[in-house]
């Protein structure tokens, strides 16, 4: 028997309202093409302002976006994309096919991108069987640079106010080809500390805040509404080209000395997963094959064989407490293998090239293993090692990319968000990020 009380909930989305979001990062630009290491925040903002030709759904399957349909030749060297008609840029002008060509050509110098009638053709000298997944990455957002130097997109929201590194206000794109977002606007405050974010959510001054991995359990225990992605951001060591770290055996010894399981269980409070491969297990399916156990004896042996070794410097982003904790732990582990490493914090935006090795965060750019490996190759300045998307080839590529120990994975972490009670329709893509187009606010009048 049901009581006679009116309900205050419905499952269909409602239109209206302003979503208030707070972030720790403070990007200086909204252009997803800027920056060697695109941060998770840059990628997330890009999905609000810009579109890609193709999107991947939760299962990793390509879905039409700016491209309505596509064809390819049998050996995947030539692809032809038919664009959606009637798509408007935020400045009101139509999205012409040549603008798509210019955008994709700029972000992919190895592709030959050209027009064929109103269709876009992408050609490559080598097969690009995973092109659709590549095109779904944020770095392949269609970005139009105006003569005034501004960047304009076709995305679900348009910029109404932007204070670099501080504040971003977005309003719904009424003419969005994919349907106007439910929200009227999104206000994003940048550069907020974790403490301030937590406080603002508690006081009702914010609707969405970040939760660092080591705080997820605590936040849940305190009754907060926390959504957590699958492991979606890698923390890794990236070695420089300096002579001090030119010996692969030294880099291997450091890799072997790291107690990844302890880092995952203590510093991450058992969130995410210890990483010895470049992809999380849920993406690759084979990462369990790479042992995460410490090889301290072997590390010591390698260190002994090297004879003398210099004291190394390990840089981390000074505004990232987790990166600092991991750097310090790596230093302690390396000392057990007889290697001296001195961690120090640096300003990410003004960093020099002095450190021997850095702790970096690398967002998982795609749920498609081949595209994700390609992105890691590109971010670390290497030629793509992915020859095909067969699981054995991906496994081999993963090993090859780490073969010289210049890139040493440590952990894969989830992204987590704490949401105010009225936030509805929040979907956390497994690979992290946002889908604010489908978010709506309870209590708003339709």
């Amino acid at each position: 028997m049901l009581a006679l009380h009116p309900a205050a909930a419905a499952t269909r989305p409602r239109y209206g309202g302003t979503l208030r979001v707070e972030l720790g990062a403070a990007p200086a630009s909204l252009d997803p093409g800027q920056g060697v290491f695109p941060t998770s925040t840059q990628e997330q903002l890009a999905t609000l302002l810009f579109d890609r030709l193709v999107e991947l759904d939760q299962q990793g399957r390509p879905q039409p976006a700016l491209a309505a349909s596509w064809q390819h030749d049998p050996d995947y060297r030539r692809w032809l994309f038919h664009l959606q008609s009637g798509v408007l840029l935020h400045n009101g002008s139509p999205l012409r096919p040549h603008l798509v060509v210019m955008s994709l050509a700029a972000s992919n110098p190895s592709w030959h991108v050209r027009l064929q009638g109103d269709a876009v053709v992408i050609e490559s000298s080598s097969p690009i069987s995973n092109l659709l997944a590549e095109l779904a990455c944020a770095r392949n957002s269609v970005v139009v640079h105006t003569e005034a130097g501004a960047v304009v997109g076709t995305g679900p929201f348009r910029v109404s106010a932007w204070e670099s590194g501080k504040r971003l206000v977005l309003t719904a794109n009424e003419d969005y080809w994919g349907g106007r977002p439910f929200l009227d606007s999104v206000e994003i405050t940048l550069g907020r500390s974790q403490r301030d974010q937590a406080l603002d959510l508690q006081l009702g001054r914010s609707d969405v805040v970040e939760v660092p991995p080591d705080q997820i359990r605590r936040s849940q225990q305190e009754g907060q509404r926390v959504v957590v992605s699958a492991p979606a951001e890698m923390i890794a060591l990236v070695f420089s080209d300096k002579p001090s770290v030119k010996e692969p055996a030294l880099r291997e010894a450091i890799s072997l000395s790291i107690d990844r399981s302890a880092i995952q269980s203590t510093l991450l409070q058992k969130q995410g997963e210890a990483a010895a491969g470049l992809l999380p297990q849920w993406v690759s399916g084979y990462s369990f094959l790479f042992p995460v156990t410490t090889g301290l004896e072997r590390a010591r042996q390698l260190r002994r064989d090297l004879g003398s070794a210099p004291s190394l410097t390990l840089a981390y982003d000074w505004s990232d407490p987790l990166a600092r904790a991991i750097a310090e732990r790596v230093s302690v582990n390396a000392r057990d293998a007889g290697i001296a490493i001195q961690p120090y914090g640096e300003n990410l935006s003004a960093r020099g090239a002095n450190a021997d090795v850095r702790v970096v965060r690398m967002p998982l750019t795609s749920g498609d293993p081949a595209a994700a490996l390609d992105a890691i190759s590109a971010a670390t300045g290497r030629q793509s090692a992915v020859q095909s998307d067969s699981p054995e080839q991906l496994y081999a590529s993963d090993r090859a990319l780490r073969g010289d120990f210049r890139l040493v994975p440590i952990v894969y972490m989830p992204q987590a968000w704490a949401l105010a009670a009225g936030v509805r329709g929040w979907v956390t893509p497994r690979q992290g990020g946002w889908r604010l187009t489908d978010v709506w606010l309870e209590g708003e009048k339709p």
Partner: protein
Amino acid sequence: MRVECYNPIFPRDPRFRMPSRSQRVLFLLSAAILAALVLTAPAAAQEWDAPARDLAEKIIAHAQSRSSVSLTVKNISSLPPSRVTEVQHALESELHRRGVSLVEAERAMEQVRVTLSENTSGYLWVAEVGHDDSWVVVMVRVPALAPAERASAALALRRTPLWSQPEPMLDVASTADGGLLVLGRDSVSLYRVRDRKWQLAGSAPLTHQRPWPRDLRGRLVIEADGSLRAYLPGVQCTGTIQPQLNLSCQGSDDPWPLSPEVNAFFSSRRDFFTGAVKLARGSQAGDLGPFYSAAMFSQGERGFWIVAFNDGSAKLINAQGQVVTAFNGWGSDLAGIASDCGSGWQVLATRATDSTLPETLTAYEIAGRDAVEAAPALEFAGPITALWSAPDGRNVTPISHNLRTGDYEAFSVSAICGR
């Protein structure tokens, strides 16, 4: 040039190929459809044969010995334990067939360690073949399984799968000659069974001037004369199914049919009915206020509405427009269904939950001012994105977005009495 196909012409989910005999007897689906489905149904364990064969061949290609090989199978995927045993048997069988003699690990010259893993595209079976420090890794991809159906109880909702596809569906409708019409975001597609398989028999685009609203809704109605009508926000399309699918669309604010007797106006830029309703015949009209869904029924001589309003409430309203009562915990989609059980009329409603979560559909009897649960709820693997009553009132068509597979799945739901 080869066209990339992202719209399979067969239902992808094994459930869609294996309706039970009772379902076939009890529900008025096309006999031709079901005959074809049953003919193509594989036995459950046989679905492992092909990947087991592929993996066995890869293992053999790298094994140094066939005379004494040990096999271990470990599952780190979401595959249920009962299915793991099936996989192990299938692998053992395929290895035996290739002359491999399986022995205990202690006696083995060669070890095969199989891990049943998974990734974004489905299962991944990984075999490590070798001994001591010499190992080779081989893998095969295996499509993911579908979740099991729940058993039914006394007064039951019976669900029959109709169609599954990766692209969003707004509504489906069975044609008189056993075909199936699918209303998508951009087209209406007609499928027919040919050569024991569902095949695309025609497709007609939905032309529209403005972008569709987010949370797009639409209805598909086959008229008594066999003509076709598609209702979308601000657009109506009319056409024919025979001799071939044909559709013509134009901007329109005409009301949508809620039931054979009542029409309701739908917002051209949003996802709800404006509240204005009118009788299909005659000029009587009224305004309920903006709502997502509504059902009409009668108790004796008295007619009632049950309406899921935009403010989140679900209310029982009498013929004079007065609120009789409100129901707690209901979602925004409801539909009436006629049956031979109880009062002969039930209302099916979703729950008041987030649209990102798995959904249930519950049947209620309206007894006076109360809504009484009349049957165990049907569980769906994702949110219900559409829920429409069939013209005969005896079936309801829910469409669910399966959160695990990402597919949109259309069902026909009926209320049945007793076991």
